[in-house]
């Protein structure tokens, strides 16, 4: 106390100096970020206006790469492939996660902890293991799924899952669903904890059933979680690459990521597959950079649309 009073006249100056120490603390992070993230992001924008293969001289071509990409088929195909995987997996996954989390939270609380831990395991598993594993499960000859189906009499002959473009899409969607169900549930659990118990009790007095309580009490309260899940799902869902790439390379012997990219009829050839192929297999860095920027624009636009749509719906109710 006394010290503070004695030093009072000098205090403003000292504080001023201390506050500027903040720059020193944030410096290491910003140094790395500027050199290894911001600089290459801007340089990629530059590359997208050139013709270049990492080694040749750069030739300025203006908007040509963008025009070529937007005129070609591959950008739309990869975008639609990506969206198809997302639409097959994510809405169902979000609804299932919400339903199960709510039931566990309000009615079967004693199972919640154990089930939470089990269902989250797929989320932390190495994607390469997941890819190989699902590839083996759906293998033509030795796959458990085919053996199972034949034993139960569901199929007479084994199904060649990995050769059928539509089945491959469904398997990738299944992986995405399987992987994220536990994670989404975890987020909903965290959100449901914030619903005040008194609100449920008040609803009970009004004679509300489980469904009413879910629809009118829980759902509006955990809206921010839903918004978070939808927006982040759009952002990373459009960047999906590991799961499809590692599934189709999984059990195909003697093959590499490059040669199997996209699977049969390129049905799981995603936006990032396109960036990867143009940039690191064909070394058309200009095209790859243009695709990367177009992909980012799509991501920002769709994330924004998702955010706006969800928020409008909420204010309506």
């Amino acid at each position, binding site marked *: 106390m006394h010290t503070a009073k004695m030093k009072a006249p000098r205090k403003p100056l000292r504080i001023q100096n*201390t506050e500027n120490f*903040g720059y020193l603390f944030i410096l290491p992070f910003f140094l790395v*970020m500027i050199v290894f993230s911001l600089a*290459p992001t801007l340089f990629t924008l530059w590359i997208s206006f050139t013709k270049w293969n990492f080694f040749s001289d750069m030739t300025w071509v203006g908007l040509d790469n963008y025009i070529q990409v937007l005129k070609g088929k591959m950008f739309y195909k990869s975008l639609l492939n990506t969206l198809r995987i997302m639409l097959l997996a994510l809405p169902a996954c979000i609804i299932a996660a919400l339903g199960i989390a709510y039931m566990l939270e309000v009615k079967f609380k004693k199972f919640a902890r154990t089930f939470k831990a089990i269902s989250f*395991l797929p989320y932390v*598993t190495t994607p*390469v*293991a997941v890819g190989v594993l699902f590839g083996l499960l759906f293998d033509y000859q030795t796959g458990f799924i085919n053996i199972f189906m034949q034993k139960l009499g569901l199929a007479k002959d084994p199904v060649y899952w990995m050769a059928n473009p539509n089945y491959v899409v469904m398997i990738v969607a299944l992986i995405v669903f399987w992987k994220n169900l536990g994670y989404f549930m*975890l987020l909903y659990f965290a959100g449901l904890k914030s619903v005040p118990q008194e609100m449920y009790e008040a609803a009970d007095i009004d004679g509300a059933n489980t469904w009413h309580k879910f629809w009118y009490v829980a759902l509006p309260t955990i809206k921010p979680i839903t918004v978070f899940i939808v927006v982040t799902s759009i952002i990373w869902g459009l960047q999906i690459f590991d799961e499809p790439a590692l599934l189709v390379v999984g*059990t195909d012997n003697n093959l590499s990521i490059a040669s199997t990219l996209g699977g049969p009829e390129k049905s799981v050839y995603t936006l990032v597959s396109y960036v990867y192929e143009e940039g690191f297999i064909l070394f058309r860095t200009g095209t790859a950079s243009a695709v990367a920027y177009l992909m980012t624009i799509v991501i920002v636009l769709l994330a924004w649309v998702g955010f706006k749509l969800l928020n409008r719906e909420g204010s309506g109710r």
Partner: protein
Amino acid sequence: MNTGGKSHFAAGLSFYTLIAVLTVVSLAPFYAMIVMGTYDSFQLFRFNGLPSDYILHNFATISKTEFPTFMKNSLVMSLSSVFFSLLASALCGYGFAKFRFKGNKMLYNLVLFTMMVPSQLSIVAYVYEMKLFHLNDSLVPSILPYVFAGFGVFWMTQYIKDIVPTEVLESARIDSAGEFRIFFSIVVPMITPAVITLGLLNFVWSWNSFFVPLVTINDSRLFTVPLGINSFNSLYYQDNGAKILALSIATMPVVLLYLIFSNRLQSGLTAGAVKA
């Protein structure tokens, strides 16, 4: 009343069934992986759910390959990612949380914004930059993205704001302790739980990372586990049994960490949604 009880019972039963099915579906692939890793490749189609006695052969096959090197590379990469990302984000988070310098809010928002930008946006120039610095074909390009990841800064800033009282820092300053000494001897011990959680998350993310190693590492001696497993395809083309055992081993570190620290990992992964 009676019918209500019955329908309640039916609803409960069907829900338990659903939970049971989902538990099996969540765990079955793991179980299948662990058991299939004990099979001779030629016996895989006779898979009956029980382990076989071939595991030692598969183990011998794996240890003769470069798989131990892949594990070592993955470990070096993941532990370095953890260390450097913790250092950078704890320092930066402390700077944002406890110093009111000019531009604090704007720079913090910039960091939050970078969390939404896809990492592939800069990948072409990033790979070229690594070539220029002669860092291609090393583990460095796979480590750096964790050092400049905005999530760590977000996580640390929030935690330090909540946990570290400014008065403690003030009194340390009155005792004329240096700013960096205050950070390392007062702040760091107070934020240990957040450091552990963020470290675990970074370990898991880094261990599972695939895309950046794929485009920056060509030398097979530097392959991490995900890249190495992929190369099993051409080297030991028939030996799926050994490959699956390798996968089981590769999945172990992350699963073990998860089983031990599941609460911490869960709280870390929900932080973005609940706190933001």
